[in-house]
């Protein structure tokens, strides 16, 4: 989801606020974004997320965040923000060997 980093969208009058849903699968370590829904409050948002996004056993944990609380990078800044990483291979941890005792990362 990409927003202008400075302004948040306002819900239309009479419409419930929008929430983004993140689900962690049973075997996973991190919550992944899987969709959004409209709900009146946080408790309803969690229940709806459970009903809509986990009914096929997709997960064991659910986060919901109001969409207007998410701050996203500006797509106009993409070049300045992300292109410089292309040629900085020395930042990747590939030049040393981990000792066997800790090599499970």
């Amino acid at each position, binding site marked *: 989801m990409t927003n202008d980093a400075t302004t948040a969208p306002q819900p239309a009058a009479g419409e419930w606020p929008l929430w983004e849903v993140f689900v962690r699968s049973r075997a996973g370590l991190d919550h992944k974004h899987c969709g959004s829904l*409209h709900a009146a409050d946080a408790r309803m948002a969690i229940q709806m997320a459970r009903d809509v996004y986990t009914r096929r056993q997709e997960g064991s944990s659910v986060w919901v965040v109001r969409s207007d609380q998410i701050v996203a990078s500006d797509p106009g800044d993409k070049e300045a923000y992300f292109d410089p990483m292309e040629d900085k291979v020395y930042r990747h941890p590939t030049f040393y060997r981990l000792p066997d005792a800790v090599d499970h990362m």
Partner: protein
Amino acid sequence: MQASIRPSGRPDVRYLLRLGDTCLILAQRLSEWCGHAPVLEEDIALANMALDLIGQARGVLSRAAALDGQGFDEDGLAFLRDEHDYLNPTIVELPNGVDGRERPGDFAFTVVRNALVSTWMKAWWERLRASRDAELAAIAGKAAKEVRYHQQHAADWVVRLGDGTTGSRDRCVAALRRLWPYTAELFEDDAVDEAARAAGLGPVASELQAPWRADVDAILREATLEAPAPSAFRSGGRAGRHSEHMGYVLAEMQVLQRAYPGGAW
């Protein structure tokens, strides 16, 4: 046209039919919302709950068929009995609205009924986990988790609507007034209950009243609603004496199975 079947009058079978038929008929009523609920997510939630209830009905009716010993199965029992052989309490067969003619129904009425019934089923399933019938105990283990969610979902909506606008509150009050007299039937013991207790199959109906009332009072208090006064009215669904609404539910449920016996997808 497929003829009706009659289960035996064995008390353990009747006890299980009361449980299984409650799930089956409530599932029918909830599924009437599919495609018509006020909000997309609630449409899915109600359909999910109907599916949970059908799963519970399948387990219980299969067990009842086995104990009945006449060679019936879950489908036969679900679709081929006559009205007086269904033993669900009347409260679950009522249409989804106060006046009975709205389609798909009144959402407040639906969530108030869900709250009253799922609170009762929660108390029942929790105690059935200790049943001496291993299969019933296993079904109860799964169902207890499902019904906890159903109850929480319904209770949250009752609180939102009861402590909501004047309009939503009025509908909750009307729903409570309409539904309350049908709850008395849920807690009346008879010979079937006594036989179930003696055999360790499950608790008697009256045992569920105190926990049910405590939970319901807590929900109503938070919803700023009041429990209606008790009435002398007694519905008779658990004894097979149903309201005028049951015939319509069964007609819709049974028409295909009766017209195409043994039909399968």
